[in-house]
Every structure is written in structure tokens, then in C-alpha cells.
């Protein structure tokens, strides 16, 4: 990798640095340098595709009571059902196809994770930016709230909130956002503190641009690299937290089963050797979280200027 800025010659830019070596291309080349990350990224794409198109690609609609036959219940993987279709991953206690349930479950899990991740990111990074930019008491107050928030175990906060709010997709998103915004706030504050001392922020102040514009147009874009990493890691965290809550029976309602609920549903059959009802949704959850984390790790490596080779 060549140093991008060519000092000295005042006509450096005329040599047509640029297209061939644009930051995006460099970033992509670095990212896909690792085989593990490439595979993880492909798997993640597949998972997202399944989640998006679950109603069209899953073999059955597991929640359409007209197509579910109770006589198909607890069939082992690969067996043929009453109506002649093959259940590749078996069926659960109510005769639903596990594969289809996983597809639908991924849809719920991912959307809850991504939604809460995005909302927490917008909230948390705005708060972190404000703390860093204005400093002083504002900063102290916000960061002490963050400290308090982070000193409670996430699961405890979520449990208390859900006990107060009740069940529902919206409520679990509220609980997840409440647990996670602090991570974003802390990350963005840290990088914004560095950025706001740079001369380009002084230049923007000198140009009489208003605070909001400086914060969101000038400072925030330069805080993005660490933020992207936190988004991926925290989304994975949100998905697993939601699965935990659903497994405990206080997360999502039975009408919108996520992977956690599917695992909980099969849990009672584990000891009677009907492993597939719990294990396959568990494996799906595992793959999802591992791939997101692998992608996040690689992003962190690529976006960290200190690791730049």
C-alpha cells in the first residue's frame, strides 16, 4: 500500500491519484483479503436474504393453521409428513416445519435486532456527539448516566423494563434500545472528542456554520469507522439478548416467534431425544451471531488506522 498524500510536489494531484486508489476500493480490497471474513460476509448475505424473503422461500407457512397438521408433530429430520412433503429439519410439537419456522424466526430476530440497533445508534450517537461537542457539565451529566447504565447487567435492565411494559415487538425494541444506546454514546463521544479538536472544526466554526451542521455534517462522518464496528457487534448482541428474553418467555408474543422462542418451544423435548426442535433454531442463531461478529471484527481491523499495513 502506498502512502496516499504525496508531499512536496505541488502538482501531485495531476498524476491522477484517485479513481484507481479511491478509499472505498481500498476498503473493499482490505476487507475481502481475509477468507474467513469473505465467507462470513457471504453467509450473512444469505441470512439476510432468507430473513427478507422468508414468506416466499420457506416450504410452508408454519403459522397458517390451515396447512399445519397436528398429525405431523415431532417428526424427526428428513421424514415425510402426512401430506407427502418432506420435513428436512423435522417438525415441532404442533406439527410445524422447523425449517420454515427458522426462516420466519430469523425474520423476526433480525428485524428486531436491526431495528433496535439502528434506533439505539441514532439516539446514542446523537447524545455522544452533543456530550463531546459541548463538553463541561453537559458532558459530565451525560457520561455519568452512561456509566450508571453500563454498570447494570443488560439482561437485568431488559427484564425490569419488559416486566413493566409487557410483551410485544415494540416493547422489546424499547428495552433493547434502552440497554444499548450507552455503548453508541460512549463510542461516538470518544471519537468526537478527538475530531472536534482538529482544525477543520475550527474552520467550520470560523465560517459561522451552526452547531447542528458542524456536528452532523463535519464531526459525525469522521466518527463513522468505530461506529460501524459497534453497530455490527451491538446488533449481534441485540439479537442474542432478544433470543434470551424470548427464551425466558418475556420477549416476543407467541404469534411472532423469534429464534429464542423456537428454542424455548423445543426445550421440553430435549430430554426425550427430540433434539431437532431446539437444536436447529439454536444453530441458526449461532451462525447468525457468529457471522455478524466475524464481519464486525474484520471491519474493525480494516477501519482501524493503527492496524493499517
Amino acid at each position: 500500500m502506498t502512502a496516499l498524500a504525496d508531499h512536496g510536489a505541488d502538482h501531485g494531484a495531476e498524476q491522477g491519484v484517485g479513481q484507481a486508489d479511491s478509499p472505498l476500493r481500498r476498503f473493499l480490497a482490505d476487507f475481502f483479503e481475509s477468507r474467513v471474513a469473505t465467507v462470513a460476509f457471504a453467509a450473512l448475505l444469505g441470512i439476510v436474504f432468507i430473513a427478507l424473503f422468508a414468506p416466499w422461500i420457506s416450504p410452508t407457512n408454519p403459522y397458517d393453521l390451515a396447512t399445519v397438521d397436528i398429525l405431523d408433530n415431532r417428526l424427526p429430520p428428513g421424514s415425510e409428513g402426512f401430506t407427502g412433503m418432506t420435513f428436512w429439519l423435522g417438525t415441532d410439537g404442533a406439527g410445524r416445519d422447523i425449517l420454515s419456522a427458522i426462516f420466519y424466526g430469523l425474520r423476526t430476530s433480525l428485524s428486531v435486532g436491526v431495528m433496535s440497533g439502528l434506533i439505539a445508534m441514532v439516539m446514542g450517537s446523537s447524545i455522544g456527539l452533543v456530550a463531546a461537542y459541548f463538553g463541561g457539565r453537559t458532558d459530565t451529566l451525560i457520561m455519568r448516566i452512561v456509566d450508571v447504565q453500563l454498570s447494570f447487567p443488560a439482561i437485568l435492565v431488559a427484564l425490569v423494563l419488559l416486566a413493566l411494559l409487557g410483551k410485544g415487538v415494540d416493547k422489546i425494541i424499547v428495552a433493547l434500545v434502552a440497554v444499548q444506546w450507552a455503548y453508541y454514546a460512549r463510542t461516538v463521544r470518544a471519537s468526537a472528542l478527538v475530531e472536534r479538536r482538529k482544525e477543520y472544526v475550527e474552520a467550520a466554526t470560523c465560517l459561522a456554520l451552526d452547531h447542528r451542521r458542524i456536528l452532523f455534517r463535519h464531526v459525525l462522518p469522521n466518527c463513522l469507522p468505530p461506529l460501524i464496528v459497534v453497530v455490527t457487534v451491538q446488533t449481534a448482541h441485540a439479537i442474542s439478548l432478544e433470543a434470551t428474553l424470548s427464551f425466558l418467555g418475556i420477549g416476543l408474543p407467541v404469534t411472532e416467534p423469534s429464534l429464542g422462542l423456537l428454542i424455548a418451544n423445543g426445550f421440553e423435548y430435549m430430554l426425550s431425544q427430540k433434539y431437532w426442535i431446539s437444536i436447529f433454531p439454536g444453530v441458526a442463531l449461532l451462525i447468525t451471531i457468529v457471522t455478524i461478529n466475524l464481519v464486525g471484527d474484520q471491519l474493525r481491523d480494516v477501519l482501524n488506522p493503527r492496524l493499517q499495513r
Partner: protein
Amino acid sequence: MSGPALVELQGLSKRFVKSLDLAGKLASKLGSSIREETVYALDGVDMTVAKGEVVGLVGESGCGKSTLGRIVAGILKPSDGRILYDGRDVSSLTPAEAKAVALKVQMIFQDPFASLNPRMRVRDIVGEAPLVHGLVSRGEFESYLDDVLARCGLDASYKRRFPHQFSGGQRQRIGIARALAVKPDFIVCDEAVAALDVSIQAQILNLFIKLREDLGLTYLFISHDLGVVEHISDRVYIMYLGRIVETASTEDMFAAPNHPYTRALLREVPRLETRHSDFLPIEGEIPSPLDPPRGCHFHPRCPHAMQRCREEAPRLREVAAGRLSACHLNDGI
């Protein structure tokens, strides 16, 4: 000095206070020697810059010259004192007027790498402020931008590029274009050429001179490089540890410096005539602005220091027409 004052500073002071945290306050209550730390960056600075003039501001690093520049440019607020722009106190203006004045005073920074937002294209770096402030309509924007860039010696085709695709000199030109795009009258150049190669320095200095002729700009040129200041300035202020110690026209100053500090500074300027002589650095270090010496700030390093210098801070007094110096030696010897 010629013409009416465009910018006038009266008794400008800036203190940076590092206040104690809770533990520190507690320790201080319990009798520890921990105290609030106050840095006296500027101490009662008076300065006048006439319209169309180029004023050099010289001093060692850490003497407060960048702080002064940032206060004049509106980036920092002074702790005490007044800034008059065109005869009006900046702090008494309505928000709309203050904004107009803020745009009239622009700044060019030392580090051409940190002073451009790495995630913005040249087009946005230079063009954002004029668009936001409505100085140019959307229809005329492109041609306006091309004009500003051309004035600074940049090609219009550079608009879509990012700062990292340019060399140091070109980046500095982009910084100048950014400042010029809001049609300023007064430009603060904070060590604007210090980070550049000598050959590029000359180009940028010539650009400053040309822009001054074309647009009638006024400059406050902050530098530690006496050669550069001598080349570009009409008048020079010498600063030491937050105070102005001497001011004179460039010719007078370089011909016959009055203040011992100025004399010591000028002696060290490398010149062709003196290239074989040894250089004697000023003795001692610049004192810490956390705990500046009493009396004249320069007395610990001054070869002529007397008892009076240790007790009483000298005031800036006129020693000749248009020349001010703050030294007790000028009082009847």
C-alpha cells in the same frame, strides 16, 4: 499605519482555567497544595490593524500568538477586553450582524492536513459556507466556485476530489479558497506557510500578496519565521508570553529593534552577511505561562534586567513615531 482601523483589540486577555474535579476540590479543602491551574495565554493585548495593511505577529511557540489569532477569528472568546471591527464592539452586535462580521474575518490554518475535512470533497469544503449563508445562488454556484478556485490557482476539475488526493501546497490553496469563498475583508494566517516546503512557501506567500492586491484584503500574519514576516508585513508586533513587547513598521523594526527580546530574536535570523558567525540562542527557556514571572515577563532571560524589571511590568510606550515598546530601559537612561 495608514487609513482607519479595521480591527482593533483593546486589553484582550485570555485565561484557560483547568478547574478541579470533585476529588481535587476535596483534597484542596483538606489542605493539599492542589489548586486550579490557570494559563495566562494573553494578558492585556492591544493591537490595531488598519484597512489594507499586513500586520505580522511574531513570537516563540507557546507565547499566545495562535490564541490571539483564534480570538480575532471568532473561534475562541476572550476572557477580558474588547474586539472592535470597523469601530464597533463585536460583542454588542445583533446575531445577524455578528454573523456577517464573523464571515468577514476568516482564518487560514497551519496544518494543511488537519484543517480540511477528510470526508468532504473540495466542492463542499469550499462551497458549503457560501451556499448555506446565501452568498451565492444555486444557479451561479458552479461558476462562483470555479472563480474562487481559479483565484487560488486551483483547477476547476479538482472540485470532485478529496483532500487526501492533494499535496500540501495545494491543500493550503484549498484552505485559502475556503476562506475567500465567503468574501472576507480580513484574514488571519496562523503559521500558514510553516508546514510547507520552502519552495511552496514562496508560492503561497506570493498568492497572499496577489490576493491582497486583487481583493484589498487585510492580513494578520502570525509566524515564528522572521524572514517570512519581514517579506510580507507592513508592520510587526512582537509578542512574549501573552504580552505585546514591541511594535513598529517592518523597516524600523528590522533596522533598529528597541526591546531586548526583539534584539535577541533578530540577532538569530540567518542572513547571508552573517552566515559564518555563531548563533547564540536566547539564554534560558520561555517561562511557563502557568506561572509567569513577576514584573517584566522577559527579565529572567534579559541581559539588561534591573531590580525594577523584577517588580514592575513595563507598559507599552511610544518610543518614536509609530513605535511602541514595553521596556524600562526606555525610561530616561
